[in-house]
């Protein structure tokens, strides 16, 4: 019966909201400074942020990439 469904749905929503309302939160200032310190700690090892020399980045190398023992997948 649609009325019972509505009640069941409404109950679920209330239960869900109770869970969400009950979680512990921290201040935005604290959360922000933690996001920032994560960035700062890892900035130096972020290749897209600081850039890496062409010799270390396989994508920046203009010469066709070759590995030792590379197997050609085309039939001989």
């Amino acid at each position, binding site marked *: 019966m*649609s*009325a*019972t469904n*509505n*009640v069941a749905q*409404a*109950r679920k*929503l*209330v239960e*869900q*909201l*109770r*869970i*969400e*309302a009950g*979680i512990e*939160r*921290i*201040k*935005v*200032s*604290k*959360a*922000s*400074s*933690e*996001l*920032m310190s*994560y*960035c*700062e*700690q*890892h*900035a130096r*090892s*972020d*290749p*897209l*942020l600081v*850039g*890496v020399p062409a010799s270390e*980045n*396989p*994508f*920046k190398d203009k010469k*066709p*990439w070759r590995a030792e023992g590379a197997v050609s*997948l085309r*039939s001989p």
Partner: protein
Amino acid sequence: MCDQTFLVNVFGSCDKCFKQRALRPVFKKSQQLNYCSICAEIMATDGLHESETLAALRSEAEGLKGKLEEERAKLHDVELHQVAERVEALGQFVMKTRRTLKGHGNKVLCMDWCRDKRRIVSSSQDGKVIVWDSFTTNKEHAVTMPCTWVMACAYAPSGCAIACGGLDNKCSVYPLTFDKNENMAAKKRSVAMHTNYLSACSFTNSDMQILTASGDGTCALWDVESGQLLQSFHGHGADVLCLDLAPSETGNTFVSGGCDKKAMVWDMRSGQCVQAFETHESDINSVRYYPSGDAFASGSDDATCRLYDLRADREVAIYSKESIIFGASSVDFSLSGRLLFAGYNDYTINVWDVLKGARASILFGHENRVSTLRVSPDGTAFCSGSWDHTLRVWA
């Protein structure tokens, strides 16, 4: 409507208690029944009771929503970009297309990197799924799915298999083999079954479990070996379009985004939604965790990307510009979390300074919508896929 008349004395068997009584017409779901006066009265008060309960529940829900907003607002003491004023500004970026992967016959819809930081799997509207070596641009594997619009694909952590799916409503796993005599399609295994299209899939930390999101409004966790449903996640009010697993250190949660404009964070073990965010004004096309796992970003058809902090339980930044009016289809963070790369339906990729909230760079190159974007596992490059049939690797 005053044509209900109780003056007509119909005498007969009550439709509810079947006793022989004087009957009066009652309407249930616009169907007319004949009840005796006792049953009619019971029905009337039942209805009243139910609607009272419903009203009470609805007002409690509204009250709780209000309380949630209040609690969140209390902790909103400052904006992220204000705290970030003391951070050094970003330098100039030189990011170019370093590789173009051509071979798909139609729109590229999804892509994923292998953990070897080199191989890429991509899927397309024409039903083809291709595995590429992004260093050489060679195609290593190709399989044709039995359906078109393969909207989701993922690389297994071991690099030995891929998963994909779309309009077939399933997620299938294909083991990757270098044996030229083996037909990849023959070893296909169907893992997930949804009742609508598959929009996203991701292996968990092992090759043994897959998490899926679907147009049927649910997400689900599956065991690859047996195809068994391990957990399902209900709560979205419309199609779920994207999902992302939390970085392994932060535990068993994942975030999903949907057409109901909501981003929801789920506990994988209990199936419970633990947090929900509803600030976007349109479909959320992409969600991605911040590398520390304490926040996640979203990209939406409302032309904005947003950052939500999980511990503050609120949105802490919006990445938007008046000149950006097309939806963001796909987002990903650089390794440190300082940069957010976002692909848009206006064919561009915008690079955002996550902390300061400003755009750092805009990248042109694709000739149609950017539909998918992922940073490589070691952060040296990122790959974008587009409706222009190509993928581009940028560094």
